[in-house]
């Protein structure tokens, strides 16, 4: 039997989002908007020291406040659940096995605090004001200890240990080589070296983390958790194990989420503490992370020192590339991924679309007394692109070859091919085409002329390029290749209800991606339904089937694959019913406009409602061989990995008097295969670009030499504003992926993966007349001035 595939009406269209009217009216429902009867509010007592022994905690004065319901320390809670161990009880993290020294994180620090913001007690009170006041009255007897602040020093034998139970501060070391890097370096005419420090970043979603737990006892024993998160079902799995509560009695609901960016794809200690205190106090408890907690004590990301070596011949052909990635990963391993993800993904993305035979890397992840580092959109890949693209521009400058030309000379072909750095095959792309297109959109030659003219006037603009790849659509194969030998299962349940409504139920857990719209587009096309008929239900473990969640640019690909499969099942059943009723052959049934009709006789048709009425209520009208008539199918999809690609060019102007860098233009040429909704894809790109500009020029998580955090507010940690980000000039190239059912590739991270390298290179290009080396992010005005002062001093020294 072959059932017709409907014509596309919605996929590829720029449809407005069905989510938006409620969000625009302030009627979204985020965790903090939920109010339960009798609900109490939690606040945490946190360490003001980077490293300190806890000699005692006195809660008497705080507990005496009227309206304080309870105060809990590690002594009260740590024996009930935990510790949290990354890479082991992980489900979807990286299982590094014996390669990883495990940190065991207690729910509340009981013996020692290991970073500024480490939580030592939780106060639960009538309202948050009172809980905060009570926190002030909790007296902790601290004994400050020397802190490990610099990852390079942390490697020395006489460095203090962040975790005395471990043999070293370096908790993961991995290396890799293909070809013979040293031989290639030894025989190459030119070898280039630099050290690049990629600064600490923060996902910093505008909505901080937050959780409500309602633990009921007695016959209806169970826990309901509302949490701002990216993985509803995995959170249930984690909590089920840690709280020893069967999954059937645990419900995790993810309401609207105000941005995640990977931060909300982790298990944090607070996520376990809040259910436990709800049980202890027999009432619902809410905790909303405040901005200080978010900046000091959630997760930072990707602080990596990169030692880069590249060998080239006289024509700029790259002969070898070697990088050493040293991650400053903070005080604990984030669950589930481990801190290897940043250095690991930096390494895996260091080669990109370059054709180089001899490639090697080492990766190390070193504990320090700083906030832990975990997944942030573009995990590690940003670092890998920055390191590579930065040295590529050095090669171009020193050999006096145009940077576009140098990249074209070293570019791989478009066909699918083995990725020499592993572990996957590239699924094909448009690597050189994107470079050329970006050059055209930019008006490159004129811009270079303009650059020279402006220099004569004392104005310095710079052009920076990044030719990037984005590793997306994470599933079983990807994780297995990265060392996590666990399958990925993502189910979608598709139902045609008795009245003809179509319901898509998925545990994929969106946080701004617009799944209510895109999944409806996909389901409507796959069934031949009208968009208005389709409703998407998501991210509630009691209403949706299991999913590994929304992260790693996977939901569009995974969701579309499963929806297409389930829709095929439903079309088959509906075609059988329609054919029987209309006295036609099943092969002649066509779907479209919410109807099944006979090919060539469009008036011979049944609406979805009419078909569903037969399926659910009229067995006498069903064909005898219908089997189970219900119009429901639950299917999964586990994609092969995809590699999107593209070219980003940043044009900046550096004010050499103030050091301020202004991003004038971003040209973004992107190939993510088949585009599902251009408005949403472009929105993902523009958002990632802004984050990329932020992390390369503005956002800083500064610690002083003693390990004290200096960036605890949004006055210190600077989000890019509307004044800092230009309108992004986006162009698309479409190379459908042979690896996925829909031809789509992951796209959500490309903006942030690629933009920082382009901005860094643009600043370096602008400052090229001054012979300075741009070797870190973020590049703040102070840094620019310091570089220029140093250059001036050394040129004066040379002339005197």
């Amino acid at each position: 039997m072959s059932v017709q595939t409907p014509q596309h009406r919605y996929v590829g269209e720029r449809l407005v989002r069905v989510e938006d009217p409620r969000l625009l009216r302030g009627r979204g429902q985020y965790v903090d908007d939920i109010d339960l009867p009798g609900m109490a509010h939690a606040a945490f007592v946190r360490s003001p020291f980077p490293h300190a022994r806890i000699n005692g905690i006195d809660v008497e004065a705080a507990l005496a406040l009227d309206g304080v319901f309870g105060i809990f320390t590690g002594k009260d809670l740590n024996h009930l659940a935990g510790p949290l161990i990354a890479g082991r009880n992980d489900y979807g993290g990286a299982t590094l096995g014996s390669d990883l020294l495990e940190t065991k994180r207690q729910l509340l620090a009981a013996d020692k605090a290991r970073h500024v913001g480490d939580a030592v007690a939780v106060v639960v009170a009538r309202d948050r004001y009172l809980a905060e006041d009570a926190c002030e009255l909790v007296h902790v007897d601290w004994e400050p200890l020397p802190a490990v602040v610099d990852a390079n020093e942390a490697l020395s034998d006489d460095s203090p240990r962040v975790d005395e139970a471990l043999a070293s501060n370096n908790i993961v070391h991995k290396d890799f080589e293909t070809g013979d890097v040293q031989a290639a370096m030894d025989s190459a005419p030119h070898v280039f070296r630099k050290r690049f420090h990629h600064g600490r970043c923060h996902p910093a979603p505008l909505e901080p983390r937050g959780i409500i737990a309602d633990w009921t006892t007695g016959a209806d024993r169970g826990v309901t958790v509302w949490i701002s998160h990216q993985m509803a079902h995995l959170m249930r799995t984690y909590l089920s194990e840690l709280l020893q509560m069967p999954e059937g009695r645990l419900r995790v609901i993810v309401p609207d989420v105000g941005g995640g960016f990977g931060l909300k794809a982790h298990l944090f200690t607070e996520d376990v503490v809040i259910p436990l205190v709800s049980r202890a106090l027999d009432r619902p408890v809410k905790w909303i992370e405040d901005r200080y907690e978010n900046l000091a004590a959630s997760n930072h990301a990707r602080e990596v020192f990169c030692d880069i070596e590249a060998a080239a011949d006289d024509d700029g052909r790259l002969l070898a590339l070697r990088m050493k990635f040293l991650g400053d990963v903070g005080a604990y391993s984030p669950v589930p991924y481990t801190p290897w993800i940043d250095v690991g993904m930096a390494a895996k993305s260091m080669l990109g679309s370059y054709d180089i035979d001899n490639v090697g890397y080492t990766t190390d992840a070193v504990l320090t007394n700083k906030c832990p580092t975990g997944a942030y959109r573009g995990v590690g890949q940003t670092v890998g692109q920055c390191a590579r693209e930065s040295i590529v521009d050095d090669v171009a400058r020193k050999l006096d070859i145009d940077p576009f030309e140098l990249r074209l000379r070293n570019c791989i072909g478009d066909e699918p091919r083995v990725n020499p750095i592993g572990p996957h095959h590239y699924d094909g792309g448009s690597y050189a085409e994107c470079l050329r297109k970006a050059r055209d959109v930019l008006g490159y030659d004129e811009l270079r002329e303009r650059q020279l003219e402006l220099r004569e006037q004392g104005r310095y603009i710079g052009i920076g390029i990044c030719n990037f790849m984005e590793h997306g659509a994470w599933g079983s194969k990807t994780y297995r290749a990265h060392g996590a030998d666990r399958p990925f299962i993502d189910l979608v349940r598709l139902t045609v209800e008795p009245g003809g409504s179509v319901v898509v139920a998925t545990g994929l857990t969106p946080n701004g991606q617009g799944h209510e719209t895109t999944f409806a587009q996909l389901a409507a096309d796959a069934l031949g339904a009208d968009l208005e008929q389709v409703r998407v239900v998501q991210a509630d473990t009691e209403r949706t089937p299991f999913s590994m969640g929304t992260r790693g640019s996977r939901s569009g690909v995974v969701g579309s694959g499963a929806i297409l499969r389930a829709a095929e099942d439903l079309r088959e059943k509906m075609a059988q019913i329609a054919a029987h009723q209309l006295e036609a052959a099943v092969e002649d049934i066509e779907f479209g406009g919410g109807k099944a009709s006979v090919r060539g006789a469009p008036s011979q048709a049944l609406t979805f409602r009419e078909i569903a009425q037969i399926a659910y209520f009229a067995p006498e009208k069903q064909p005898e061989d219908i089997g189970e008539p219900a119009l429901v199918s639950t299917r999964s999809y586990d994609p092969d990995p995809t590699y999107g690609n593209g070219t980003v060019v940043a044009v900046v102007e550096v004010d050499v008097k103030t050091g301020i860098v202004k991003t004038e233009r971003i040209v973004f040429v992107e190939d993510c295969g088949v585009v599902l909704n251009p408005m949403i894809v472009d929105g993902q790109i523009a958002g990632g670009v802004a984050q990329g500009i932020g992390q390369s020029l503005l956002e800083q998580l500064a610690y002083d030499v003693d390990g004290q955090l200096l960036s605890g507010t949004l006055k210190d940690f600077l989000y890019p504003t509307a004044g800092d980000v230009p309108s992004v000039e986006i162009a698309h190239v479409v190379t459908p992926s042979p690896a996925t059912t829909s031809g789509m590739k992951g796209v959500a991270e490309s903006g942030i993966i690629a933009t920082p390298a382009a901005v860094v290179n643009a600043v370096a290009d602008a400052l090229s007349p001054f012979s300075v080396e741009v070797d870190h992010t973020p590049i703040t005005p102070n840094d620019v001035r310091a570089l220029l002062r140093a250059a001036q001093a050394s040129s004066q020294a040379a002339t005197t």
Partner: protein
Amino acid sequence: MNKHLIKFVLNGEPREILVEPNELLMNVVRERESLTGTKYGCGIGECGACAVHVDGQPLLSCIVLAADVDGREVVTVEGIGSYGQLDPVQEAFLDEGGVQCGYCTPGMVVMSRALLNENPNPTELEVRHYMRGSLCRCTGYSGIVRAVLSAAEKESSGKAVPVAS
């Protein structure tokens, strides 16, 4: 601490409530009045997610004491547009892809409305300047800026009319 009785108008309705002297307007709006469209993002007036109109001027409710709105008129995002008829600013955010996660959106709507009330024909630079105090982590501002410009164009050409509560 002595509580204060304050009288003010909230989205067109007169209100009389007792507030603590240190109670923030944001808490009154969100916790006492259950108007949860107004959002917390930073607590120090840096992100704009808590913006509301007070006597027609945009203010950040996370750094305004509730006692200070005694005798004044407050409009939150819930007072702008209705389901049947979105405000032209809201309509434009919908059309131009100005929304992703939606968390900054109420503040953006409040600020955009204030901008267009003040300056019906802003340039792109003026929009970007005016909106600098409203942070968005998702959109890169592209859709937001397009939306404000598009709403301005429609309103000033008479194709759309602001919808107040």
